[in-house]
């Protein structure tokens, strides 16, 4: 456990740019759940593998992703 993200699901528009930006392929767009605007939002699967590289947050056009990272393994 080195990193994790928290997604502002109400702000997310489900564009999927973070999904292709994640080098570890940990993100996917939720299949059925939608936010108040009707967009499917991004969720993080198997977060234990996340290394907190911030790629997803940098490419996010709406700034919905916050990244937490620790130095400990």
């Amino acid at each position, binding site marked *: *456990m080195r*990193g*994790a993200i*928290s997604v502002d699901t*109400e*702000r997310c*528009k*489900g*564009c*999927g*740019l973070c*999904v*292709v*930006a994640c080098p570890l392929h940990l993100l996917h767009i939720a299949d059925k759940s939608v936010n108040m*605007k009707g*967009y499917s939002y991004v969720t*993080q699967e198997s*977060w234990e593998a996340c290394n*907190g590289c*911030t*790629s997803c*947050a*940098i*490419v*996010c*056009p*709406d*700034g*919905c*992703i*916050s*990244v*937490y*990272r*620790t130095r400990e393994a």
Partner: protein
Amino acid sequence: MTREEFIKTAPLVYKKPTLLNDTPMHYCPGCSHGVVHKLIAEIIEEMGLTERAIGISPVGCAVFAYNYIDIDWIEAAHGRAPAVACAAKRLHPDHLVFTYQGDGDLACIGTAETIHTLNRGDDIAVIFINNAIYGMTGGQMAPTTLMGMKTSTCPYGRQADLHGFPLKLTEIVAQLEGTCYVTRQSVHNVSAINKTKRAIRKAFQNSMEHRGASLVEVVSTCSSGWKTTPVEANQWMEEHMFPFYPLGDLKDNTK
């Protein structure tokens, strides 16, 4: 340890810049405008210019830019953002003055204002979002539309004999004496976003240090206008836009 517990204890390493407020952006999913807005907010925050930044917003998709970044903004008439920025900078020489314009605003109706302001060498920074289409009004052909590219007003593709050739305004302004820094960047992946951030920061520094006019073109996507998904739009941009609009610095007199 659950994810919630981890988030409570681990240090926050990346979050939306505080200058970018919580107003939901009206842009379509995956629009490049959001990334550039975020970069501008980050850079102004890092340079400590929150109280001394004046942005000039255009007419086009970014017309509501003043709703999203908490600095002073002036909304200019269509294409006239550089003229307004020129006045703002001359009245407030110690302020950061930048314009934020799309290709319809800067390269079509505002060509004269853009060229003359940059030729005078007013110390402003121009951020030029080039997505080769009129996004806000429904995907019409823009001066920057590529040859053969289909839009709602050239449904069979842009043809030279009927529509003329795409305008490379960045190359034109690089010839002018008044500009000190002219570059073309993009925001399609992490490294490109970091390069764009450095370019915009440099343009803002040039504005603060009175070195002359700077122009940063950001080759962008318009997934709605191009009728693709955001991910496909980025791929299309890499395949079709970059050969005609090659990335890199065209002019840098600040070295």
